[in-house]
């Protein structure tokens, strides 16, 4: 299978602290890859670097063969790489549907003048987007709350909202930071289903940071283990579960 994304030893220092210390990762198309590791291992930091929020001190990141490190988050997103956040960050004062409606790329209404002048185009496009969003919200179980302000949602629903928003950007690589954190058991199941379905239907590649082992082991393959900003091990669930170093630092250590 073809590689869609790879990052070659990324370094990022916060003052003296080595947040990322030569971390490398390679993703194949249509896989669901996981990054696991103890807290402070630098998983979220790597997401921020890949998402363009922090510039890496050293190392290169390639997406679909293009170099994307040094680009702004919005430019990276437009290339087809979308990430979500560990603590669900919703646009609180906006309704759920507005939150999701914000996501679709190159909308007509994004330019000030066409927003004013091209009524028909704007209208029809938003209708089209809404049809997609409607079904998506139904799948995510957010349809009932579509007119709620996002800040009034429960933690799990916010996760759902964030994922739906990310999906609406129609990414080829979707980086989920603890998608099931704060979600109930059912919600977790729903999220896992959604991820697999998207992989199969839309052919989206996933990179997931997760703590819940059952999620990882059932959902993801391969798995990267991160330890103090470095690669510790990677491979399919079985190898990881049997890897000594991993057991030391992580599973029960």
């Amino acid at each position: 299978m073809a590689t869609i994304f790879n990052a070659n030893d990324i370094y990022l220092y916060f003052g003296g602290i080595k947040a990322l210390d030569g971390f490398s990762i390679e993703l194949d198309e249509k896989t669901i890859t996981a990054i696991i590791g103890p807290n402070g291992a630098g998983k979220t930091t790597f997401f921020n670097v890949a998402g363009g929020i922090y510039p890496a001190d050293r190392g290169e990141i390639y997406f679909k063969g293009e170099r994307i490190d040094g680009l702004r988050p919005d430019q990276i997103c437009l290339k087809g790489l979308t990430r979500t956040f560990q603590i669900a960050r919703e646009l609180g004062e906006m309704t759920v549907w507005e939150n999701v409606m914000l996501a679709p790329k190159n909308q007509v209404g994004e330019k000030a003048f066409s927003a004013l002048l091209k009524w028909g185009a704007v209208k029809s496009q938003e209708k089209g987007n809404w049809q997609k969003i409607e079904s998506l919200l139904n799948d995510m179980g957010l349809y009932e709350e579509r007119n709620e302000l996002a800040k009034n949602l429960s933690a799990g629903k916010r996760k759902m909202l964030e994922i739906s928003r990310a999906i609406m950007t129609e990414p080829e690589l979707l980086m989920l930071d603890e998608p099931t954190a704060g979600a109930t058991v059912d919600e977790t199941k729903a999220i896992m289903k959604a991820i697999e379905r998207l992989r199969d239907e839309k052919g989206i590649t996933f990179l997931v940071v997760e703590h819940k082992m059952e999620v990882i082991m059932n959902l993801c393959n391969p798995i990267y283990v991160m330890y103090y900003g470095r690669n510790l091990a990677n491979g399919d669930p079985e190898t990881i579960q049997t890897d000594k170093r991993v057991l030391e630092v992580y599973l029960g250590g």
Partner: protein
Amino acid sequence: MDELLSYGLLTFATLALPALGLCLAIKVTKYFNLTYGDIITAGAFLTLLCNLTFGLPMVISLIIGMTFTAAFGVFLHKTIFKPLMDLKVNPLTLLVVSLGAGFVVRNLILIGWGPQPFQFSIPLARAKHIGPLFLTTNQIFIILTCILVAVGVFLMLRYTQLGRLMRATSDNPELSEIRGISIERVYVYTWIIACALAAMGGVFMGVLGTIKSGMGMGVLVTIFACLIVGGIDNPYGAVFGALIIAFAMEATAIWISPPYKVIAAYLLMILILLVKPSGLLGGEKIQWKYFLGFLRSRQS
């Protein structure tokens, strides 16, 4: 050239202390207070009250004036700003509120004293040549006091317990709260210092020029220019900025054209914002937020 030195120093003496005080207030309380300009005015008028109405000598009136201004400042903080800070509103809301508070204070002073200008009862004196300087004794006294007070504040920040508390609070309020520092106390002390400095600055303006309701609001923008040029998060920067702005204004008046000296201050401010938004002596605190938005977009 030597005239630039004298006039620059005098303007500096009127700007430095308010700038320093406002800088401390912003550093600790984490919001811009537009009422500060009118607190400057209040300080001048309270001193005027003692000096003119009760006929007390200048120095004593100044001390009383500073005390009452500080009390007034704390009163404003307790009644208007603290309740909002408890609600954890964002700094901007506090800024807008301080705007309203400024309206109130300014017009209360207007009602109290009327629109006409006032003078402290200080005997007139001729300026003398001292080295390159050409100043009256009062002015020399003011410049020296200004420098001494500024240095005093710096020492206080560096070496006293209060100074440490203030720095700790400004660096990380939550953490210091965990450490058991009563943030409210620090706020109050900061306001006392800031308002005392404001009063002193206002009185200096009065002694060097005249006192009028609304004088503070006029100078406030210039003071902000000082802060932005020097770096808002840095007390040394505030005084340094005051120095630069003062000399820039007077130099403009001398060599370019007097009417432009006010513009000079603002243009300097905009220039600094363009090349180094964090100010000459400031950290990167202002920039980090928009390297996302703007600085990065310039690179790519």
